[in-house]
């Protein structure tokens, strides 16, 4: 068994935000390019993982994209309802990141 590290040790930024009123996007910005490369290679952050963490169908995960220049991984999901709709809980989408903080990465 390889050792794992909690993602909190590896990131500068984890955040959620609206990408327009119909999508929610998550950014992981890593502490260094070395760490970013390792996480990218591990492939742990993928559509299935995001779907599992938020208990949503994989089809609702629009994309998981590695963005080398920012040593960042970005995942985007369909918003459960449009921003500000009746019953919505987070108009800016800025407090939906917490489940991501439990991710463990094999290092």
């Amino acid at each position, binding site marked *: 068994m390889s050792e794992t590290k909690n993602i909190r040790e590896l990131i500068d930024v984890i955040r959620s935000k609206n990408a*327009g009123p119909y999508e929610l996007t998550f950014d992981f910005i890593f502490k260094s390019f070395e760490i970013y490369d390792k996480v990218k290679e591990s492939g742990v952050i993928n559509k299935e993982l995001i779907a599992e963490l938020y208990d949503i169908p994989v089809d609702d995960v629009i994309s998981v994209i590695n963005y080398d220049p920012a040593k960042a991984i*970005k995942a985007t999901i369909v918003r459960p309802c449009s921003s500000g709709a009746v019953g919505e809980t987070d108009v800016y989408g800025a407090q*939906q990141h917490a489940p991501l903080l439990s991710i463990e990465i094999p290092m």
Partner: protein
Amino acid sequence: MEEVRILSPTAILGYGFPKESFERGLEKEPDLIAVDAGSTDPGPYYLGAGISFTDKTAVKRDLKLMIKAGQQRDIPVVLGTAGGAGGEPHLEWCTEIVKEIAEEENLSFKLATIQSEQDIDYILDKFEAGEVSALSPAEETTKEELKASTRIVGQMGVEPIIKALEKEAEVIVAGRAYDPTVFASFCIKEGFSAGLALHMGKIMECASIAAKPGSGSDSMFGILREDHFILEPLNKDRRCTTTSVAAHTLYEKANPLELHGPGGVIDLSETEFEQLDKRRVRVTGSKFIEDEEYTVKLEGAKKVGYRTLSIAGTRDPIMINELDHIKEVVRETVRDNFDDLSEDDYQLLFRIYGKDGVMGDLEPEDEIMSHEVGIVIEVVAKTQELANTICSFARSTMLHYGYPGRVATAGNLAFPYSPSDLKAGEVYEFNLHHLITVDDPCALFPMELEEV
């Protein structure tokens, strides 16, 4: 022109900026002062209600500094998504502020206003002609849904603003505009690369959010040249780093490699970020790929009713344990007491802070872990009176319900306010996030010129 020098004072007009940063920007001899004034982020209410989410006094403070500086230096001042949402009342509100400033400061200049609010019948015609399509993941719309819209705006590209610049407008107040356009229009008009201009605009519209430490209320300076642009925060305590700028490129967007906007896509697959010195970053390689058909994004909001809220908390562990049951009983009691009302007449919601108040359906924890929880009773109904009635009844029912195991019989809820019920007024929802095909990028955005 060999280069375009741009001052972006703040991330959103009305968010403020230190005068010192702004003056440092003026010393760098900008060719343009531009600012983004809005967003869909604050939600559908502002678009629907025709009200700004920024405060008039704050907007006027920012604008006064910008317009005075623009006039002193004889350079244009461009602002986009006026009034926060870019509808007709928003534009009117903002134009009024500009005119007040002109009068108070004894200024006179050529003012261009560019409308972006759309005539609903015109959009209906275009829809029937098959020229309105959903921007995924929004669903396809219908005639009925379009008719229900309270207000629709189109998101303009650079073309209408270029037109105003060509008419030598000194202050341009644009309705809903794609955020980068207020910066990019001038650059594209001067013959610079649209890809670099729009990418620079995408970063500069958030001003110093792209710096480290980031701030939405501090200024940024950008210089665009033939094959690159350079960004520098104007507060000496902030720095642009390759990662702060690259990281900002992906902010609020689904895909950092392809940014879709009016008329095409900014392709960032070959973009490179280079640290010039401690505080400046140089960016190269961003390209603009034109779409075959020019599309404009439409944003719409419709009124869905009126809201009344009651905010309360509970500290009783027996009650907290029974919350799901209590919610159901209150809901049933309301239904039973008002059985002449149909399901469409009102919606009753309970928001449980301490359980899933923040994440709703996305919340992975299903147990309440807290010793106290916040409860917001919310009603959205056809009329304000009905919302008040249902909220009042639900609140009193929840306050006195004898749930299983109850030992505290004085009342189940702690109210922080009197009155306990807050009338929150009109409620809107976004109902349009669609693309419309146009032949002329300026067709949806009529401009008016006047001397003030």
